């Protein structure tokens, strides 16, 4: 990025000031990282739509809001909110974060195998430095990304999960992030680090919800490190308030023969950016990225994914589906980058979108960049409307127009839920999908 572009970007003085203030806390190591990130944020400012990566997503509305830093206000954290966040009855471990801060009294951990750490990042930064510092902020780069820089500068807490070699945590680990914004617009910066060492295995759920229809910004960064032969199933459920801003980066680093599957389900938020980057940095590793994003009303959901095939014999599969209704707007920008040394890469990327209204909009840009000749790669995207033939067919069977629309939309979207292996969560998400679709069949319920 040229310096002149930077100069044109949007600054946010209060956020930059907090970033500087917060950055001076903590150990000397964290101080160093935070301060570097804070000064980077001050330089970068928020991106504008003149930048290619932000062409379709205008974050100027965020810069206009006089945010305050989120405290640990618990008033909005009701059982109903937690139930919505957990998406069905939870059999596993539960860590709750309120405005990014760990809330032990709302959390429940079950017995864990020896050596496994599951808890707050803030605590781990003092108690388990040797397991945190080699990884934290090593993968998610803040050099060219304002929101990652802001998160890194402000990072106070989040989840830290560390699984030693050969250890398997069977029950899913649920990380519930609840935002409460009583009376004023707040910012929270959850920061998660998940390290699964050689041969380890874990299932993780990150879930983001808002307590009320209020304005706030969740600016989350999660780093996942999959060691050799590690197997990780990751889910990211985003059900923020429809007035919320949600900026998120998932940065995955994979070593030899590791397997990472990540599902991103985005149902909420007013302005949402969901970035997923996976770096296949070990031969024979496999990565699957699945996504479902739904936008209605005035919602804007931007998905940015990038899979870097750095080493040979790696496989990646990506399928993102978008459903856009009302004046909802979606973006899919996916890159598969095959590096020179990555022979025998096998990569497939697909984006399918369904537009339900005349004003719904999607910008889709699947991209392959290949610097090796010995690869199998494919990509494609589709944008469609509901099939008129199918609608007529259903109607001749007595199914009303709105219900028929809802049924076909459900059929399109639910494919992404059928791959979820945590059964109660899958059922709850099917229900959430039906709820999302229910305005489509208002006439049926009347």
């Amino acid at each position: 990025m040229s310096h002149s572009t930077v100069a044109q970007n949007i600054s946010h003085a209060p956020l930059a000031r907090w970033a500087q203030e917060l950055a001076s806390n903590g150990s000397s190591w964290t101080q160093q990282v935070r301060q570097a990130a804070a000064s980077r944020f001050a330089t970068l400012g928020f991106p504008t739509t003149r930048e290619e990566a932000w062409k379709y997503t205008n974050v100027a509305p965020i810069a206009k809001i006089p945010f305050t830093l989120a405290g640990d206000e618990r008033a909005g954290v009701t059982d109903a909110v937690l139930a919505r966040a957990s998406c069905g009855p939870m059999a596993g471990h539960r860590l709750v974060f309120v405005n990014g801060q760990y809330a032990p009294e709302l959390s429940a951990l079950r017995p864990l195998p020896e050596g496994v750490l599951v808890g707050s990042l803030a605590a781990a930064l003092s108690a388990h430095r040797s397991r945190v510092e080699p990884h934290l902020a090593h993968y998610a780069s803040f050099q060219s990304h304002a929101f990652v820089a802001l998160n890194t500068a402000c990072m106070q807490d989040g989840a830290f999960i560390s699984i030693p070699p050969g250890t398997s945590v069977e029950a899913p680990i649920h990380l519930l992030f609840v935002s409460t914004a009583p009376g004023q617009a707040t910012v929270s910066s959850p920061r998660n680090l998940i390290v699964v060492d050689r041969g380890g295995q874990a299932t993780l759920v990150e879930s983001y919800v808002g307590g009320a229809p209020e304005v706030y910004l969740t600016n989350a960064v999660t780093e996942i490190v999959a060691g050799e032969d590690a197997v990780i199933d990751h889910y990211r459920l985003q059900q923020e308030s429809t007035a919320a801003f949600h900026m998120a980066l998932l940065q995955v680093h994979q070593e030899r023969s590791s397997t990472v599957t990540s599902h991103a389900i985005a149902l909420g938020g007013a302005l949402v950016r969901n970035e997923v980057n996976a770096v296949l940095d070990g031969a024979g590793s496999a990565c699957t990225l699945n996504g479902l994003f739904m936008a209605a009303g005035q919602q804007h959901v931007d998905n940015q994914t990038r899979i870097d095939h750095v080493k040979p014999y790696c496989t990646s599969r990506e399928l993102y589906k978008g459903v856009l209704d009302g004046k909802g707007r979606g973006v899919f920008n996916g890159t598969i980058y095959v590096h020179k040394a990555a022979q025998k890469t096998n990569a497939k990327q697909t984006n399918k979108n369904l537009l339900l209204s005349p004003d719904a909009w999607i910008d889709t840009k699947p991209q392959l960049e290949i610097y090796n000749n010995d690869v199998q790669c494919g990509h494609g995207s589709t944008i469609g409307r509901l099939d008129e033939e199918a609608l007529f067919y259903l109607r001749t069977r007595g199914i009303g127009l709105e219900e028929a629309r809802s049924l076909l939309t459900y059929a399109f979207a639910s494919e992404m839920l059928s791959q979820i292996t945590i059964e109660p969560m899958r059922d709850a998400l099917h229900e959430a999908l039906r709820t999302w679709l229910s305005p489509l069949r208002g006439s049926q319920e009347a």
Partner: protein
Amino acid sequence: MLSIKNLHVRVDTHDILHGLELTVHAGEVHAIMGPNGSGKSTLAHVLAGRDGYEVTAGEVRYAGQDLLRLSPEERAGAGIFLAFQYPVEIPGVSSAYFLRTALNALRQRRGLQGLKARDFLALLKAKMSLVEMDQSLLDRAVNAGFSGGEKKRHEILQMAVLEPTLAILDETDSGLDIDALQIVANGVNMLRSQERAMVIITHYQRLLRYIVPDYVHVLFDGRLVKSGGKALALELEEKGYGWIEAQVARTQAVHA
């Protein structure tokens, strides 16, 4: 039950039906035969309520109502069923779910309680034997990857489940081998009743060997130009549609 008077239908800028007349009573089976392009499928679709078919004159009354004012789903609710010539594939919706949703939607329209999953499955099982259909088909997406015969049997299964009062079968015989044709015909025959009328639209006489109609009509150039008993179908099979064409031309010459 069904009374079509002087029906004129336009699709895009083409007048397809001009002055079609047909009366169907409960319990009757009518065959409508005609060459390609005579308006057979247009008739089927306009009765089912498809968009894009403009009725420029005439009326269709069904069970005392003006049928043309009803939406497709309301027509289904009133007891009309169209077996499609080309059944539509619906990926992602299992056949079982589709059938239950349809049945319960119809029951709701008729002021009845929806069936619970278990009761519905029992009903479905009984109906499936009617068309010799494999149970595994229920878990598959509607018509997706079905063979031609499976699609048509699936149409008849829907008819059996939804129990219409007026069934319109649009070229249900097309694309079927003789075995599948017999299975489909058996299914249809078992659904014949005093309360139910059927309109069977076909190009060939073949299907009518197995489903014996009470009346046969010849549709030609958007009108029913000849009606008779089942013998008319045989005559058409022997002579083709050419003689009808000649007859119509003569009649028109006389009128002119």
